[in-house]
């Protein structure tokens, strides 16, 4: 073909130049759909310093963001749990700082991981701990939540996003359309925040600076109740997808919870445990189902017993009606809304440690004034 000099130049060019060009194309595409800041320290900075709504359409993993924010903010009160603690807001509290690590847990082991990782640098004063109903179910697969962005370095995080983008372009028409759409909204009209990620730009869905989640689509257009609850009813009926049939709890998981509570107490943390809410209709369906009623009673009782043994506050909000929340205030069959969680906060005043920090007067005022069935606070608030 040629001599080694020429061969070397051509080979190096063929091996490396196209890869850099492809990376450039991916970067351009990420920029185009407003995903370029996902998985970067800039995103953390934006949430810490100002208002930013972080909603990536490419990656559901917000561990990198949340651990980064909590490390910087070091809030006094922290909520840990699944998507069912993503409705607590900083405005529910007064004279203190709050952050919710919601959305990072799928199991008790995830709770421990989040607690250990989030408290490496400091120890919060109060932890609000959610014990989701499925986590003690012996027939539910207690898999750890994947954290692809957290466990990788900056280059790998980027490549991960390229990969997600590649898959999305192939399989998601909306992403393809967005790539071709010249107008991308960089401000969230609900919260008046800068948007990071396509989901935040397109649907105003994403994580706010206090770790809570803004359900943009639901806020702007709430589906009828029947539609919102349908999926959960089906899961109850089919006994699948977190509603697996069970007649007792997994004591192994309960003992993990016990260890976690103890380790928190040993470090001087005031622990509050709560069971998150179902709409009344869903709760009644569970109680009347032979596949589920024994489990739900045992679950409520055993967590209560554990908290009594460990002398930590326990709140059972399994039915949102118990806090005065109607089913209309449910986001779906598995999640209460901001209104429901406002009401839950009013019940938290029973805990003497937390009581001084609960902004009860403000929450009551908002419950009265807000005309949205699910939303308590708007951007001006």
């Amino acid at each position, binding site marked *: *073909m*040629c*001599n*080694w*000099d*020429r*061969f*070397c*130049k*051509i*080979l*190096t060019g*063929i*091996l*490396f130049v196209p*890869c*850099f060009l492809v*990376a450039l194309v991916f970067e351009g595409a990420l920029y185009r759909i407003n995903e370029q800041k996902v998985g970067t320290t800039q995103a953390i900075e934006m949430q810490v310093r100002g208002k930013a709504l972080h909603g990536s359409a490419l990656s559901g993993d917000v561990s990198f963001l949340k651990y980064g924010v909590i490390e910087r903010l070091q809030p006094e009160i922290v909520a840990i749990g699944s998507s069912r603690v993503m409705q607590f807001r900083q405005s529910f509290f007064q004279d203190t700082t709050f952050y919710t690590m919601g959305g990072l847990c799928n199991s008790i082991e995830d709770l421990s991981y989040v607690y250990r990782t989030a408290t490496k640098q400091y120890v919060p004063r109060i932890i609000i701990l959610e014990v989701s109903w499925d986590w003690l179910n012996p027939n539910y697969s207690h898999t750890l939540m994947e954290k692809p962005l957290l466990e990788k*370095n900056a*280059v*790998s995080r980027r*490549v*991960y996003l*390229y*990969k997600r983008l*590649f898959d999305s372009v192939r399989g998601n028409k909306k992403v393809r359309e967005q790539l071709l759409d010249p107008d991308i909204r960089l401000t969230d009209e609900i919260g008046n925040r800068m948007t990071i990620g396509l989901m935040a730009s397109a649907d105003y869905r994403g994580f706010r600076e206090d770790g809570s989640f803004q359900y943009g689509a639901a806020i702007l257009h709430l589906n009828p109740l029947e539609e919102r609850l349908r999926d959960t009813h089906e899961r109850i009926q089919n006994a699948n997808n977190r509603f697996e049939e069970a007649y007792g709890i997994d004591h192994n998981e309960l003992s993990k919870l016990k260890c976690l509570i103890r380790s928190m107490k040993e470090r001087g943390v005031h622990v509050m445990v709560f069971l998150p809410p179902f709409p009344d209709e869903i709760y009644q369906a569970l109680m009347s189902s032979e596949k589920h009623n024994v489990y739900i009673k045992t679950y409520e009782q055993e967590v209560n017993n554990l908290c009594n043994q460990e002398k930590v506050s326990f709140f059972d909000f399994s039915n949102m009606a118990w806090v005065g929340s109607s089913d209309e205030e449910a986001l779906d069959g598995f999640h209460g809304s901001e209104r429901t969680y406002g009401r839950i906060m009013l019940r938290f005043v029973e805990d003497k440690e937390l009581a001084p920090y609960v902004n009860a007067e403000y929450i009551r005022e908002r419950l009265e004034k807000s005309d949205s069935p699910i939303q308590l606070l708007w951007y001006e608030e």
Partner: protein
Amino acid sequence: MLFNSYEFIFLYLPLAFFVFLGLANYFGRPAAISWLVLVSFFFYGWWDWRYVPLLFASICFNYWIGGQIRQGFGPKYWLMFGISVNLSLLGYFKYAGFFLSTVNVLAGSAMFDVPHIILPLGISFFTFTQTAYLLNVYEGGANLCGEEQNGFLEYCEFVTIFPHLIAGPIIDHRKMIPQFTAISNYVLDFKNVSVGLMLFSIGLFKKVVIADSLSPWVGDLFYRADTLSFFEAWLAAIGYTFQLYFDFSGYSEMAIGLGRIFNLEFPMNFNSPYQAQSIVDFWRRWHMTLGLWVKEYLYIPMGGNRQGEWLKMRNLFLCMLLIGFWHGAGWTFIFWGILHGILLVINHQWRRLHIALPDIVNWGITFLCVMVCWIFFRAENFHDALAILKAMVDVNHIVLPAGGRIENIFVSCGVLQNLGVEFLPMKSVQGVSLTKFMGMICVLGFLLVKMKNPLMWNLEPSFKWMTIVVIMFYSSIWFMFRSGASEFLYFQF
């Protein structure tokens, strides 16, 4: 940092290389060596920076001991001191937990708390490399001419240079230092860069496309060792045999290729080991630099083959035991070493009988023995290893994959059912179907038996090689993109 990662290929390597060339060109050799040492420490620290001081302390200590031995005041004591400290370091990090848990098991109670010690990456390799250096200095072999050849910077480069730091090949001070000091090695050599890139791409392909594609099935089969059928047990054994080879030889070729890019000749580590005609032959072809190390610094000092047949056999057996123990602190590794020791002894005695067997028989027996040994090497414990071996001879439990043409043919004849053969639907593992896995095994088996080692290939600047290398490189990049980077199997040792 992994060789098979984007940050290594597209950032670290180009930066390390071009700055190295620039420094060599404008500031001279010491600046270029300093840069290589710096980036090599960075490469090591990428895994866990807390162990960088350990590596640096080990280098300083061995260099200092080397100096003391050279000065000639009680060199034997300095040598013994140096080796003892090196072995203690390795012993603490690699074997303390194993030793204490063994004592606990023997005592039948928890006499000691077994510490959870993280094994520093590459400790076995840099300890062996530096121990050999001390022995060479003691014997006078490492006292190279000129001050610069005995300089600290050159020594640092010898131990840390990133292509070999984590998993070898184990390099020899006497052969490497002259390369570090030769001025001609600090200029851009297009041939070396090309050959280096070609070898790197071939190694990358072997690791990412071949070994990593076998990995899910092998992992799954060994995970459920207890429940394997006859057919699956054989697949597990053959699959791992191939996976380990492609993984480790791929790594070695990448390391050798990277060395070539920097004008360095690293020793060959594999020479088509699965074409070996005997166990003795196998060990001349598999992990050759470790074999040479053990031969030079253990087998020969113990007397080698100079003290009669019985002592020769003893020495061989002990060397293999050490190789087993070097690979990992576990009884399965030790047993793997013992098995190879026994096989070597049998092989040597068989040779004395002067019975010639056909090549195919020699090859078959050797391959089978090596494969059986790998089962102990890979299995989590003896129970799993024995379960796989048992399944491999359990002809009463043959299960073949259902739904294919083979099933249709045999079911219609009713032949296999009469022999007790079952057909069951078999799953895919991480997207790799059983058919694909079996197909890969067959193709790889053919290639391993027929093809020469890539280092023996006549690489030339031709369109053919350009095409082959580009295809290999881009298919590896694509596989990395789809599945992410995975660690090399030999990193754990």
